[in-house]
């Protein structure tokens, strides 16, 4: 079992010969990247010992006498069992070694949690309480930073113009302004396969975790993970935005991202992790936007009338001003994607990206047989008199 963003675990390699030592180091690096590092014996949390070397038995005795509380993995060609030691028989099966190291990591973490639990109750509470809120994204890679300039501040800061342009490109795709006179043509490039990427894997993991009411880890091949905390409606994300974004564009298989159910409680996981929790909805929202990049989920029909069941919580999500307009339109009257673009006169990329994110969050409702009420006034003519003024107020608000 893996956990999000712990400090690297030190592993001591003892008794390995000059050929096996670098092989083992490469193996560790490949599977856990920087999460496991080889350290001297006295700094290690876990030891892997080759019993078949000349010094094997002496090293084992030393481990048992000096580090009897520390997990120990012994490698040997002989079939044997040693009390309190995990023995792996050579030739080594890498999967088994990997699993054994993971089990040891879990035990080490559990011990850490136990130690922390013994700390004063007040300190523990302070660490758990902030979990309810969004969220400060750590690291410079987060384009749309959450600010925490004071206590309990939970909001998004406004990015610079250049940064906003990057956000728009990464969520709504490249601008088509030069081609805007071209008619809207449905072709393959408008669609993406949302069923074979991170968006669906994350969504399914959230749904499963919520229905089981148990935390779950999304573990990537490189050992990075996202921990889902269904009851707190939060996640612990060890992956920076800049690294998460390209993953959203990849076709991912179950082998590349594993979903592992956790046996630990949410508070234990929060205590053991340095990441600030962030809302699950906000994560799914931005993953959907990055997956979309201004394209529609495959199979979407552009001429079907749609609406939204509820407004997304845009103040706490990756949002651009056009999203408010689209949300306002879709919350009032069911309308097709094509008509939305015509009526709002905005690029389809904005509409498709917003649709994709809303679709991932199950906010979209389809109205295949909806016909607009003939008594309903055309919103444009109804409000025409105020439009200029409203526009100017909006310009003023957007410049704040």
């Amino acid at each position, binding site marked *: 079992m893996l956990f999000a963003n712990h400090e690297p675990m030190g592993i001591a390699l003892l008794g390995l010969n000059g050929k096996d030592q670098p092989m083992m180091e490469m193996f560790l690096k490949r599977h856990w990247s920087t999460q496991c590092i080889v350290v001297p014996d006295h700094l290690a949390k876990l030891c892997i010992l080759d019993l078949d070397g000349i010094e094997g038995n002496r090293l084992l005795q030393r481990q048992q006498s000096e580090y009897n509380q520390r997990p120990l993995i012994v490698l040997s060609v002989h079939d044997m069992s040693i009390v309190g030691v995990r023995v792996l028989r050579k030739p080594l099966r890498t999967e088994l070694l990997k699993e054994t190291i993971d089990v040891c990591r879990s035990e080490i973490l559990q011990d850490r949690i136990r130690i922390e639990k013994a700390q004063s109750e007040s300190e523990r509470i302070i660490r758990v309480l902030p979990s309810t809120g969004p969220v400060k994204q750590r690291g410079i890679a987060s384009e749309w930073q959450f600010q925490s300039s004071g206590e309990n*501040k939970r909001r998004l*800061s406004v990015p610079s113009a250049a940064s906003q342009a990057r956000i728009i490109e990464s969520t709504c795709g490249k601008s088509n302004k030069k081609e805007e006179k071209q008619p809207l043509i449905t072709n393959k490039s408008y669609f993406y396969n949302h069923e074979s990427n991170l968006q669906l894997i994350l969504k399914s993991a959230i749904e499963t975790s919520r229905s089981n009411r148990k935390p779950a880890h999304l573990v990537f091949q490189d050992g990075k993970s996202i921990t889902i905390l269904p009851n707190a409606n939060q996640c612990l994300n060890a992956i920076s935005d800049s690294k998460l974004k390209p993953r959203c564009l990849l076709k991912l298989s179950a082998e590349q991202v594993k979903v592992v159910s956790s046996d630990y409680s949410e508070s234990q996981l929060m205590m053991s992790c340095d990441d600030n929790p962030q809302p699950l909805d906000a994560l799914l929202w931005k993953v959907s936007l990055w997956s979309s990049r201004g394209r529609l989920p495959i199979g979407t029909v552009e001429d079907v009338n749609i609406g939204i069941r509820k407004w997304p*919580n845009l*103040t706490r999500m990756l949002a651009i001003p056009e999203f408010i*307009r689209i949300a306002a339109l879709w*919350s009032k009257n069911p309308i097709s994607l094509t008509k939305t673009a015509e009526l709002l006169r905005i690029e389809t990329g904005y509409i498709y990206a917003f649709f994709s994110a809303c679709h991932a969050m199950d906010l979209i409702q389809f109205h295949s047989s909806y016909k607009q009420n003939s008594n309903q006034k055309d919103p444009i003519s109804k*409000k025409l008199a105020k439009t200029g003024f*409203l526009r*100017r107020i909006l310009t003023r608000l957007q410049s704040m």
Partner: protein
Amino acid sequence: MSEHKIIFTGPVGAGKTTAISVLSDIVPITTDELASDMTKDLKQQTTVAMDYGLMRINGSERVHLYGTPGQERFNFMWEVLTQGGLGLVLLIDNSRKEPFQDLYFFLDAFKSFIHTTAISIGITRMDEKSHPEIDDYHREISAMGWPVLPIMEVDAREKEDMSMLVQSLLYTIDPTIAE
């Protein structure tokens, strides 16, 4: 000269005065008095008549921002304040004992004004108390028979939050406002 007004309402302590102060171009005019009733348990001063702020749009255009007093005993003023208003910004304090009761009360009290204009709802103090969640408010509003309304988590002290909330109000009035 073109003049319009936006009304801010909500229970005592929801952040109406603060919201107006972050949006206003002038130092807001408040009619705060020392609280003498149960409000004093929540804050030392409270609005007894109204708050007033102003957004200057250009030379001759202005948007007046009016905040209603939170206590129900001042509700005789609400009808007067809303006359000619563009729309209503309702702020609900999530940390209060029964925020849904506040929601029902204010939606009902301003029903006719909302039906002829628009509303956006900001939920404040969610950092102090995270439940009910935004989804719960949507459920309540839907159960009351209201259409889909903009509801967002806001911090009344934050300009960006309040700006987005008012933008959602204006786009609800007319989503087709051209760039």
